[in-house]
């Protein structure tokens, strides 16, 4: 294994900021920026592992969600509501190898709009809601829920 690992490099950079740079700073703005940079490096060290896992989980979930939505494309209720194209493009993006992550997300955005405006039929809306719930849970896990504004 090649050392230092990316996480060890980030931890070292954080120590450089905290132990070497910050004690020499006098400008309030520079001190504030250095403090935030050190904090961001702590988070970035976690993100080295967690971002790829988040993306992998999102892609898998979107694929599964569009798989479960696939039969609804045949029923006509989706078409009647004006979302046939969004559903089809999501399914097509899901079928690509590798899957088109942005394409699936964009299609999901349109379907989520259908949920928000109550235009999407119940069974499809249920699947979309369930995905959005899992999506938010993953974001919560990735970033936490701490606000700088309290």
């Amino acid at each position, binding site marked *: 294994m090649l050392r230092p690992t990316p996480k060890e490099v980030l931890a070292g950079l954080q120590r450089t900021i905290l132990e070497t740079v910050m004690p020499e700073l006098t400008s309030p703005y520079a001190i504030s*920026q250095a403090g935030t940079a050190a904090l961001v490096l702590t988070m970035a060290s976690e993100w080295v592992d967690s971002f790829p896992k988040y993306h992998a989980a999102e892609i898998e979930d979107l694929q599964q969600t569009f798989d479960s939505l696939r039969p609804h494309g045949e029923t006509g209720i989706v078409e009647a509501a004006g979302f046939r194209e969004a559903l089809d493009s999501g399914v097509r993006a899901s079928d690509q190898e590798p899957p088109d992550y942005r394409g699936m997300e964009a299609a999901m955005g349109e379907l989520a709009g259908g949920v928000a*405006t109550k235009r999407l039929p119940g069974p499809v809306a249920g699947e979309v809601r369930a995905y959005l719930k899992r999506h938010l849970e993953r974001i919560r896990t990735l970033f936490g829920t701490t606000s700088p504004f309290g």
Partner: protein
Amino acid sequence: MDSIRLTEYLKRKLPDATDLRVVDLKRIPGGSSRETYSFDVEWTENGERKRRPMIGRRDPTGGLLKSERRREFNVVDTMHRAGMKVPEPLFVELDPSVMDRPFFIMHRLNGRTAAGAMAAAEPEALRAKLAVAFVSEMTRLHQLDWRSLGMEWLGVPKDLAEPARAQTQHWLELYNQDRMGEAWPIIDAAFAWLKANPVMSDRIAICHGDFRAGNYLFDDSGFITMLDWEMTHLGDPLEDLAWSSMGLWGKDNLAGGLIDREAYYKLYEQKSGAPIDRKRLFFYGVLGNAKMAVICLTGIRDFTEARTSDTVMVLLLQAVLPILLEDLAAQLNLVE
């Protein structure tokens, strides 16, 4: 900003001053949409030595908002003349050869800012006092006669439907511009809802556009001054009320970290003399969360594309955007 060029500039602006010096020039944190500098100016005039605290706000190379310096300066100047609690504007300079980028200078007032948990940590009596002053200042702004103040240049909505429609369109365009090709399903849903559920204003008023905790100065004796007028426009006054009471700015159920949200709305009704249209308030609450999400994406894009080195932009992704997504999902009933 550098001291030598600033001194030369101020000598030109204050021709009667002799022995002018810029003292304690330092960049200070806060105001992520501008570079903010604190300094004092000393000079001799009519044999008398004078000293004045000032703030310089210079355009950044990147950041949260793209707005015009002249516009913000003119708004603050008009508000100052109208008797609103704003710092006295002094000079605006649009020529980039003077200090690399446009800037303006205003009088510096002492005080502190606080949002959310920080505001909520203040003594309850002070919070109650601040809430009254804050809402009073907001309603006073909304009651100003913008025509007699000559503020048509802000852009007069052509009808009462335009404020909701124009704000939705403005922030949707910025969303599409700054999302870096990424799809955000919940933000997409929010804009779909906003487009499908426009509201009609009951009147057109001056909207600050960023009237919230964290954008005013206060001390232990109370409210001092309102800051950050760069998003001011003519629109629906409930836009400011909804924005100021968004969950992001206030811990638990405290609007702006000050007082209970419902008490806050009652206070606005008392001060404005009119009941709040809850449907419009809800619309502008959704718009506020979507707007702030777009502001986050603008900052994240500028950081990602190296137009700003302000590390606060990364915190927007980690700590602000997730809360906005949660709030939008709850508002629009997007999750079971």
